[in-house]
């Protein structure tokens, strides 16, 4: 059927031999393609896809430690719905995201505007702002733990010295969360600046020139030229920052361990706690599946929009 229509449509009917040759060459190219992909596919299949399926299976089981697992259907998910700590962790994750993402992005944009203007030693400043990106989450968390230390840490000493009250960074829930937020912003603002800087450098200088001739103030220029024209960067950063905030682990694990109480527990640390500290692995896997679904949703949005971003810059 297909060969008939193909021949009918083609202006010069091809003899079977070259077609076979062509098919062979296409097959060979396919083989080469798969060959190039084989190492990647093997690793992904074994260490990602297999564990995902396994996690799904585990999430339907009641398996404490290494005892023989028992199929319990949706029990883990039902437990999840009625587990206050899960919801608290969920709420903390969202609070953490809402606190970090806008500040990091606005701060990143401001720094990018600053670094894109006339400024002495710009290179040095830029280096310093990007530098925290190469510091591990663990080291950052430990340094922060010392800086924010409640009894006589440097921040509380400074606060006392200027006549303010020291803050209960470790024993009070909200300050604990805020301390983690501050460190996360410190770690990530450089990335936001880099992306915005790249976005800014694609804006035509003439636009600002024209706006200035029309008497637009700096603020008006920022609002009506800069912010709209870095829109694609903003969207990209929004997704990246939300995903990063959703997955914050190292900092919280090291700085607060989810405490005091559960006031800084987030989804990923709660999944770890269940999987490896309480050793309710089925339940931990179920939380993992929830994280997985949320992450895939965000990734899907990012993918849907990444093309527009690439086109825009």
């Amino acid at each position, binding site marked *: 059927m297909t060969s008939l229509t193909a021949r009918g449509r083609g202006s010069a009917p091809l003899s079977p031999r070259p077609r076979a040759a062509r098919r062979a060459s296409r097959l060979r190219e396919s083989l080469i393609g798969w060959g190039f992909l084989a*190492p990647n596919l093997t690793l992904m299949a074994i260490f990602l896809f297999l564990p*995902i399926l396994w996690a799904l299976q*585990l999430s339907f089981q009641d398996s404490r430690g290494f005892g023989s697992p028992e199929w319990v259907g949706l029990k883990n998910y039902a437990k999840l719905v009625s587990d206050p700590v899960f919801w608290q962790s969920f709420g903390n994750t969202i609070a953490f995201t809402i606190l970090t993402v806008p500040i990091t992005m606005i701060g990143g944009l401001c720094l990018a505007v600053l670094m894109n*203007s006339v400024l002495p030693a710009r290179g040095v400043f830029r280096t310093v702002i990007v530098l925290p990106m190469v510091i*591990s989450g*663990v*080291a950052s968390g430990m340094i922060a733990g010392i800086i924010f230390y409640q009894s006589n840490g440097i921040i509380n000493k400074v606060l006392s010295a200027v006549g303010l009250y020291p803050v209960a960074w470790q024993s009070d829930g909200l300050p604990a969360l805020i301390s983690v937020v501050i460190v996360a912003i410190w770690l990530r603002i450089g990335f936001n600046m880099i992306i915005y*800087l790249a976005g800014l450098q694609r804006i035509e200088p003439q636009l600002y020139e024209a706006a200035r001739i029309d008497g637009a103030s700096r603020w008006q220029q920022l609002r009506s030229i800069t912010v709209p024209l870095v829109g694609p960067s903003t969207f990209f950063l929004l997704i990246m920052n939300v995903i990063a905030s959703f997955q914050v682990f190292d900092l919280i694990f090291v700085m607060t361990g989810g405490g005091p109480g559960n006031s800084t527990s987030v989804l990923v640390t709660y999944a770890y706690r269940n999987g490896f500290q309480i050793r309710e692995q089925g339940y931990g896997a179920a939380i993992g599946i929830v994280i997985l679904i949320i992450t895939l949703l965000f990734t899907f949005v990012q993918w849907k929009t990444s093309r527009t971003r690439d086109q825009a810059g």
Partner: protein
Amino acid sequence: MTQTVAIPNKLATTMSGDREPRRKSRSSAAAIGDRKGIVWRSIIAIVVAIIMVFPLYWMVVVAFSPRGEAFEPTLRFWPSAWTTENFQRVFELYPVATWFGNSVVIGLFITFLTVVVNLLAGYAFARLRFRGRNVLFLLTLATMMIPVQAIMVAQFRLVSDLGIYGSYWGVILPGAAAAFGIFLARQFFIGIPDEIIEAAKIDGSGQIRIFLQVVLPLSKPLIAVLILLTLMGSWNDFAWPLIALNDNQLFTLPIGLLYLQNQTAPNYNATMALALISVLPMVALFLSFQRYFVQGFARSGIR
């Protein structure tokens, strides 16, 4: 081939950064306003820089302070006496050299494996036509953002079943399944002009030869970015090594750091000394190859 092809553009332009800010002829009043602006901007920049550097500065101060001084009631921004006792202590009490070596070995293996895998896969996605390519690409994309915490329980069991739990390989193999480099590579390879590859095809080279002898030599900037970012990622990685390593002789530096902190009587000065040791190699790499790092961050969305 002595063509100096301008392919790296896609990567390189992102962060050439130093495009001179526009400055046309101005009236003198505007120039004065501008000078005032520079002063203000410099002040803001200095304040920001101090905030950004302070935590690192404080790590150094605590690492070189006499034990316990950081938490004395007196406010000090400088050690009363610089001492290396914390470093001596940390080396005496813990297998720091071993941990450092583990980080290096694991980092090099992960980097080598990942970069090879990423280059091959990136090239296939960018330049080879085959059935299933788009589906596979989407699949790879989808996995990129999955945090290890989502599947760590199953991954832990898998690694146990494979008999590589508590070994280097238990960290290395799952670590090499990272996909972010594939996108970087793909973007770069798409940017290589068709003519170069067509010319090689006409010369009768097969795909494998083209990849090895034509494409790879043109890809040094890409390879540099991949190596640096992958090395940094594995050097700083925490969650998975935390799960996969149980023997303190196999710890990497981040896990060693946690081990120090979890001692019954934690010595914060020693912890900062080790933190400094663990951070220095990456800071040195970053300062030496900043351009590549920044390009990589910008193109891959690594945060």
